[in-house]
């Protein structure tokens, strides 16, 4: 799950498409970042304009010197990013974060993606297919408009099943319902809302299936310096801080930084504390 040093590069916006109301796909020319990206890689984008900390966004697709971002218009930074005109230069740091691990040839991998959580899986599917791994994917969303990127995932070689909470596209089901029906998977990869990830981890642990999830938190620095993006992990796990236990808080877990220790964590290392409630 290691990764090389990230790069600071000015990416040029070369395409800009509103793929659904509130959802955007932006293409950038950024040769060094595009060529270094792997599964679950993300970029930290400096959105031009009044100050804000860099915006972390997963790398969706890459081709030669280009990468694309697929994102929802959440708030200030994504709104401003979506309104840049083609030709603008945008400072990016990337690729950041670790990668999903790739199983042996001939295995079957199951991808579980909730909504915009599909982003890390285009690159993963390509890597898995290149390694001779079969890829099944369950992609779910609240409603049809929130379901984006399915065609590209299929093109990359995944066998995709779709579901929505309201049945407006595919099965009317939750991602986990469909995941439970797949019995052949040797490894599960998850990304999406916390509730989904939590249930997925529980499922994987009950059924003793290897599982890795890509996590999210509000980032400050995106570089590992501010300790703002931590998640609790099993004490002693490889990605945790490894600091000695504190006499004050009778620590039962470590914190790991999503930005540089992750974003990918083995499901068995992630703790689901009250804080997530």
């Amino acid at each position, binding site marked *: 799950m290691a990764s090389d*040093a*990230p*790069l*600071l590069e000015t990416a040029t916006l070369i395409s800009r498409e509103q793929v659904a109301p509130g959802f955007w796909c932006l293409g950038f020319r950024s040769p060094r970042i595009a060529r270094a990206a792997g599964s679950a890689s993300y970029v930290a984008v*400096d959105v031009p304009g*009044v*100050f*804000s*900390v*860099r915006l972390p966004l997963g790398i969706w697709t890459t081709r030669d010197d280009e990468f694309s971002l697929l994102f929802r218009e959440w*708030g*200030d*930074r994504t709104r401003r990013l979506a309104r840049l005109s083609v030709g603008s230069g945008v*400072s990016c*740091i990337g690729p950041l974060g670790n990668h999903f691990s790739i199983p042996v040839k001939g295995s079957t991998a199951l991808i579980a993606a909730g909504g915009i959580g599909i982003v890390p899986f285009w690159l993963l599917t390509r890597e898995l297919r290149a390694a001779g791994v079969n890829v099944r994917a369950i992609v779910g969303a609240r409603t049809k408009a929130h379901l984006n990127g399915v065609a590209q995932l299929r093109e990359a070689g995944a066998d995709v099943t779709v579901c929505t909470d309201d049945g407006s596209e595919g099965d009317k089901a939750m991602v986990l319902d469909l995941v439970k029906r797949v019995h052949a998977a040797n490894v599960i990869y998850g990304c999406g809302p916390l509730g989904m990830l939590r249930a997925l981890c529980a499922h994987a642990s009950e059924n003793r299936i290897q599982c890795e999830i890509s996590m999210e*938190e*509000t*980032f*400050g*620095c*995106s*570089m*590992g*310096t*501010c*300790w*703002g*993006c*931590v*998640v609790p992990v099993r004490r002693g796990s490889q990605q945790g*801080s490894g*600091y*000695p*236990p*504190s*006499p*004050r*808080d009778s*620590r039962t877990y470590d*914190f790991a930084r999503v930005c*540089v220790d992750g974003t990918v964590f083995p499901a068995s290392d992630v703790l689901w*504390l009250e*804080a997530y409630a």
Partner: protein
Amino acid sequence: MSASNGAPANIDLSVDIGGVTLTNPTIAASGCYNRGAEFGRVVDISAYGAITLKSVTREPRLGNAMPRIALTPAGMLNAIGLEGPGIDYFVAHEAPKLSSVPTVVIASAAGFTVGEFVDVASAIDGLPGVAAIELDVSCPNVDSEGECFAVDPRTTDAVVAAVKRRVKLPVIAKLTPNVADIRPIARAAEEAGADAISLVNSLRAMAIDVERARPTLANGTGGLTGPAIRPVAVYQVWESAQTVRIPIIGMGGIETGRDALELMMAGASAVAIGTANFRDPLVAAHVRDAIAEEARRRGFASVRALTGLANPGFAGKRWPADRRPQRLGVSR
């Protein structure tokens, strides 16, 4: 007319902070840069005249639950909760790496009692590669109902004086902006023997997650930083500079060279940059070069001439660095 590093040639960029010479007046702010290794992956961190380490406490601390960060207009909130390994681990595992940092290193000590400050500062004193100790007196004081040390001249004095009695390294007192009047606090720090003061730490603030009807940060309240608070930082540096003669490290919302010059002209001898690193990892180089360029534009040989330039009441100019005042004795 430009040196290879982008700064104009022939301008003396160096500044003196309590006897420590920095090659230029930019400092990475505590809690935002660690020892530079992470940002060092993408930029040359020796652009900074110094870096300040994350504050270390005596005991290991798990810190606060998450979310620890929230975004606000032109700024951000954080409530990290001083997560860290504690001083023993720091001395054993992190301090040995400091000698390889390619710029001056300032360590930062935090504590919840005067004794904790003394213990941490004493353990830091003399570590190879550490040039000065900053005291994060903006922590809550558990001996005094959790009030922050630096809201009261007496507790500020107590911490600084106790540490000064025990350590040889220069001591920088880092003050909080959450006070009605910074002047008595700055004066108390100076009179207690601080070799410099740094300000401002973050502003007490909070955000509500309206969707869920609860505070956005798990900790409830947090500290506001970034450009939003710069006018408050300029004001408090301005007031402090009329009050103390020891050097001031100004910080709070510096994003550009112009911003840094605001703080220097208000009275800061050096400037620290925190949150802006989270946008622009090259910020130190940009700020350094802009400070040098402003000195050149004004025909100054040294950037030191910019300090207090806009502040007619600037006390520092009447007080040469080698004639620092004796402790005058504040009621404790």
